[in-house]
């Protein structure tokens, strides 16, 4: 445990250090820049609210990616399933006249089901036609991107806007804010994270999914239902993405309407988080928060120190690489050190 924490801390510090060097090299003040990032992401209750809302959304995508990585099913349709969630939430929110206590759950459930269906289609294509879900999910991203764009260009378009986008959802469909700054998405995401943790640790399905991801042959001989679990894992992963899409529409800090192509950066970030978090729910929470902090503070940093926004994207990339490489290499490094110490013992005996 301490070893895990040490490698993570070491990875993040390395990335931050490298970022500083780059800033110095480019003639910026590194401390000022980082301070600005921190101020704009954590400096006020408003800033914290923005950071946490973003964390909630990206954590959903990261859970989706974690599901696929740890179960051995490949779902790369994050973007497409987020779009599905978004468009369904928008449609319900705009056209279904329901009171808020019904509308919000309806949007959440509708989006989750929509995302699950999209992933499940890929799963069924695999089951019945042996089509690689790796490719089909990736292709669905394009189909859904253009299809949703078509929808907001035609039937769902807001005629008042010059740019193609949907109407704004009914006001009672927007997530309520708590304490004036905390969006309801944060509590919702927290609940989903707790449920996911239990699902992985304490259910048969979670156990079979993990084992299938680690050694499918062993799982198969052990009596795990490989095919059934594959479909379930695909659907679950799609549902997480659908939820992320829904939160992108109904969050109080969001635009509350569908704009073509929105959410693509979340899709990529979710995949990266799943990789650095190493299929661990707690890791997902930590890295979602860290990355959201950097992203939320990026605009502020650009404003104050004129370091371009893109620097943060680079910093996130550096973090992913250094955390993963330090994690992978640390075991080898420690083992080799131990072996050398052991070898010295034999040399000493020789002297005696």
């Amino acid at each position, binding site marked *: 445990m301490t070893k895990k924490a040490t490698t993570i801390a070491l990875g993040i510090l390395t990335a931050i250090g490298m970022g500083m060097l780059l800033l110095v090299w480019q003639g910026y003040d590194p401390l000022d820049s980082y301070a600005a990032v921190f101020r704009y992401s954590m400096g006020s209750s408003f800033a914290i609210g923005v950071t946490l809302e973003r964390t909630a959304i990206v954590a959903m995508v990261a859970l989706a990616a974690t599901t696929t990585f740890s179960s051995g099913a490949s779902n790369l349709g994050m973007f497409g399933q987020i779009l599905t969630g978004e468009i369904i939430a928008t449609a319900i929110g705009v056209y279904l006249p329901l009171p808020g206590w019904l509308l919000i759950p309806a949007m959440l459930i509708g989006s989750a089901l929509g995302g699950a269906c999209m992933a499940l289609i890929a799963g069924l294509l695999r089951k019945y036609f042996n089509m690689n879900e790796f490719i089909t999910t990736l292709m669905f991203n394009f189909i859904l991107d253009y299809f949703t764009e078509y929808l907001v260009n035609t039937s769902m378009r807001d005629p008042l806007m010059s740019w193609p986008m949907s109407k704004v959802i009914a006001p009672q469909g927007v997530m309520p804010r708590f304490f004036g700054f905390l969006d309801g998405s944060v509590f919702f995401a927290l609940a989903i994270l707790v449920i996911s943790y239990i699902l992985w*640790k304490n259910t048969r399905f979670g156990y079979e999914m993990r084992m299938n991801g680690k050694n499918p042959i062993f799982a198969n001989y052990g009596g795990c239902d490989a095919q059934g679990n594959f479909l379930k894992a695909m659907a679950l992963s799609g549902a997480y993405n659908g939820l992320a899409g829904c939160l992108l529409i109904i969050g109080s800090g969001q635009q509350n309407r569908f704009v073509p192509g929105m959410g693509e950066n979340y899709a990529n970030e979710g995949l990266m988080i799943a990789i650095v978090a190493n299929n661990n729910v707690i890791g997902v929470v930590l890295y979602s928060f860290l990355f959201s902090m950097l992203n939320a503070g990026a605009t502020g940093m650009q404003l104050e120190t004129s370091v371009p926004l893109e620097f943060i994207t680079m910093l996130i990339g550096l973090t992913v690489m250094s955390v993963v490489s330090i994690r992978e290499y640390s075991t080898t490094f420690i083992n080799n050190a131990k072996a050398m110490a052991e070898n010295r013992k034999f040399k000493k005996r020789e002297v005696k």
Partner: protein
Amino acid sequence: MENNVVEMRDIVKIFPPDNVALKRVSLSIKKGEIHSIIGENGAGKSTLMKVLYGLEKANQGEIFLGGVHKQISTPKEAVDCGIGMVHQEFMLVGVYTVLENIVLGDEPCNALGMLKLDAARDKLKNILEQFHFDFPLDEQVQNLSVAAQQKIEIVKLLYRNVDILILDEPTAVLAPQEADELFKLLEQLKQAGKTILFISHKLDEVLRISDTITVMRRGERVWTKPNQGLDKIALSNAMVGRDVMLTVEKPETVPGDTVLEFDGVSVKSPLVPGKLDNDRVSFSVRAGEILGVAGVEGNGQYEMVQALIGALPICAGNIRLMGRDISKDAIRERRRQISYISQDRKRSGSSQTDTLTDNVTMTHHYVSGRLKGKLGLLSVRKMRKLCDEIIENYQVKCKNSSTRMMELSGGNQQKVIIGREIELGCRLLVADQPVRGLDVGSIEYIHKKIVEERNKGVAVLLVSADLDELFSLSDRIVVFHNGRLVAQRRPDETTREEIGEFMLGARSELND
């Protein structure tokens, strides 16, 4: 010193992090002798040979060849120094001819880089004549038997003018008759002045062919003695440091009702169209008996077990478990009633990177109610408890239940697996080569456990390539050859030689 072709001094090898495989091992090999190195698995004999062959780099120590200090860091250098090794798994290309395989890596070429196979053929002819080999040089290697392939590996070394041959458990893949032939060949090689290093588990053959025997235990050399006046008891005591029971105590039991029945089962080969891997196989196993399945590897035993578990579909006949036809059931259904120890503990018997707890949970998680917690969830506490029980009752040496499977030795891994399967409490136990590659101590323990299960009234189906194992455990033995069940015997009414003849297809008792 001068007549020692190989002299290894104070070799230390540490596998990271702290697995000391060789603790200052010294070994001298005389020219022209057959020198056997025996020891349990993990005793370091293979590692020592790999250091000599340049496959592993030693942390300390020196190697002298003919009195000259040598640094050997790759197999290529070893071959240049006249040292060659035949591995347990052959390194041959199936679709190449024998000749092509032999010259591979050392091909005679002309100035333009074109192959000159005829030059190689001439050189080989001498070798083949000298040692009376008779295999067709232009046949594809995949069409030859395992024994022939092994000979090709040896010829490969002779072709490279190797003087010191290391053979890593060469008889593990051979039938008794084939092993005899190998020993004759080794004797001839010795007459021709070659030195042979022979690694083995099997005490009988070591005593039979060796001039000198070295025993290793836990990374140390126990002793090296000339093979005079030594016997099995002396060797096994030195290997494990205590007396081992080489025959399993097995009380007489009266077998009960039939548990498993194969009735004319055929299995199509997934690789070769039109071929049947199992052809009308019929047998039954009763409660309280051990049915041993003998056969040279690749004759249908593996497919029979796969068909029984449900991993391979059958195309004719049916399989009945306690009277019920299970031929159409999924693996998940069948595993409710079958405890199964698979052939390959790393690939199909465990998840190496997961904890022991996760490993013992498999199958229990849906079969038995003993892991159920509140609200129908899996109880992590009960999973750990099951794991702790298995660790204690099956004498698994490990830190605790959170240890990862890969950190355990092979024997302890197998004990975890066997514990898991026996604890399922099924009436049928299928054990496919349960002790392959294990040390004597673990083998003894696992055999004891299997016999205990039989005495409790469990029907046991034991598949093994080791006739000693089959003879000491089985109540009945059936023999597979070419996908067919060719004979059935009680071990006290037959001999290893007779079973060997059935295995090789020299005899058959098929009545159709």
